[in-house]
């Protein structure tokens, strides 16, 4: 990936972040901090990694993307709109009665959404089942499942990861996004998790979301036609430090006022110019 392409992707991610703020601002509800943090990673996946044709969202041989992070849904919607799955106009009706873009995606109705975003564990089992079925096809389409580091605090999730590791599902990629600031001692917890997954048959890599070359390198090093399932731990380092915050209360109805929205958009503009 050359510098020009990197700049291009960063510029798209900056626009996606602004769209997220506009969506949440207009809706007067919805999480935005996680979405803003995840925007860069999603842009990389949708522009560089996933094999898909936006005009043919139901193509059988397309790669699938699934997430169990409801707070990342605004970013996913914004990315899908920018990628051409549907008109950006839909973003401004996010969370409205009867709108296509509901708080959690209606996967049968929204182009580009491959599966429901479950708030119950273990959603990873759903992704694994889809990957297993697709692995029987000649093209072996991949299933990319995005989850957060917090998933490892669920016994259900860990047990399921152990079971999946024993199956040969080479086309399954679990992306585990963690903020470096998430917890004290986070790196040792991560090391333990990596060791645990590796011992269960997972092929594990690490990357940094803001370092697109590290993402590319990690993804390219996987052989999606052979071996066990793949796991990619991605650190999301870049705290954007906006003066407005949803306080991590992704499911509550905290809304951005117009003043806060304008301020946050200005701050994003300044930060993207700095980059």
């Amino acid at each position, binding site marked *: 990936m050359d510098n020009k392409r990197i700049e291009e992707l960063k510029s798209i991610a900056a626009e996606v972040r602004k769209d997220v703020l506009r969506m949440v601002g207009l809706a007067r509800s919805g999480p935005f901090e996680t979405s803003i943090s995840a925007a860069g990673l999603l842009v990389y996946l949708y522009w560089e990694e996933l094999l898909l044709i936006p005009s043919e969202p139901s193509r059988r041989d397309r790669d699938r993307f699934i997430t169990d992070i409801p707070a990342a849904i605004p970013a996913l919607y914004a990315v899908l709109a920018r990628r051409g799955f549907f008109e950006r106009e839909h973003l401004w009706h996010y969370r409205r009665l009867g709108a296509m873009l509901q708080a959690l995606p209606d*996967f049968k109705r929204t182009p580009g959404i491959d599966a429901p975003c479950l708030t119950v564990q273990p959603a990873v089992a759903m992704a*694994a089942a889809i990957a297993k079925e697709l692995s029987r096809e000649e093209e072996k389409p991949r299933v990319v499942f995005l989850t957060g580091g917090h998933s490892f605090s669920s016994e259900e999730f860990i*047990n399921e990861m152990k079971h999946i590791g024993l199956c040969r599902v080479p086309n399954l990629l679990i992306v585990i996004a963690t903020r470096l600031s998430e917890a004290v001692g986070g790196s040792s917890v991560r090391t333990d998790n990596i060791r645990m997954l590796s011992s269960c048959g997972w092929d594990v890599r690490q990357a940094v979301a803001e370092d697109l070359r590290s993402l590319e390198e990690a993804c390219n090093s996987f052989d999606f036609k052979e071996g066990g399932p793949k796991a990619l731990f991605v650190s999301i380092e870049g705290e954007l430090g906006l003066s407005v915050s949803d306080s991590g209360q992704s499911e509550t109805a905290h809304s951005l006022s117009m003043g806060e929205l304008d301020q946050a958009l200005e701050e994003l503009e300044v930060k993207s110019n700095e980059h």
Partner: protein
Amino acid sequence: MSTNEKISTFAAFCELITEYALNNEDFLLLTTEEVTETELFDRLPPEKYIRTESSVAGALTRAAGSAIAGKKTWLLGRVAELTGCGYAQIREAIALPKLPVRIAALNGGLSCAHEGASVQLLEDLALMRTIPNMNVFIPSDMAALRGIIERSENTSAPLYMRLGCTPVPALDDSYGESFRLGGARILRSGTGVTICACGIMVSQALLAAEQLERQNISAEVIDCYSLKPFPESVLLSSVRRTGCCVVAEEHGNIGGLFGAAAECLGRTYPVPLRCVAVEDQFVNSGTPEELREYYGLTWKEIVDASAQAWALRRR
């Protein structure tokens, strides 16, 4: 199979689903780890049968994934684990996205009553019936079960079916072309009282009808295998002739077949209505036969309830 041979709906399910699986390309049967009778599915090729080793929650979300990938997915588990522990997954991963996952729940009613109330979930039908998009069935014999399995292919909605372990007689040899999801079978015609029953209580309802005949009360017995969609037209047509109704079910008396019938009749054509079901309580442990006797789920209570309803019937 001879019509006199008794077979449980679970045993019939194993037989029929194997036959169905072998004739259907995209079929997949998942069983939860609590189901130990795996040898019953030995005839199935590995790509059509998976015994999940994960939790019930994992089995349910896995079933959802298989359905998304285009498989005709069936999930077999025990009632208590599926509807008790797995309620959130059934609701969110299967019913909300309206995925065609067929859930077959074993040990329904009082058939596993030795284990006590914690694993004897008598409210499963009520729990499933109130979930939007979910269809709920309770076959009373092999013919009804065959009909449900075969007709389920034509529906894209999720389905919950309760299976019992108590052997039951064949009530109606052929389900025929008229069998449909959302229908009911009239097993005996009458004009004095409508007895609407499901599952194992259908055979008790037929015994009760014979007793009532001796008291000059002509009972119409309906096998209401479909709780949702509910066969309103069949029930209404019957009660318009009889003027009263008795509901019999191996379930708590809230939210199951009695609830469905009461909602339908109360809304459209109110008539005297009686219920033969377990009162609002947790059950003791014991043999299924003892418990059915103890909690009043026999033909005798149906006869009593019918006589009461008949005396008050709408003329």
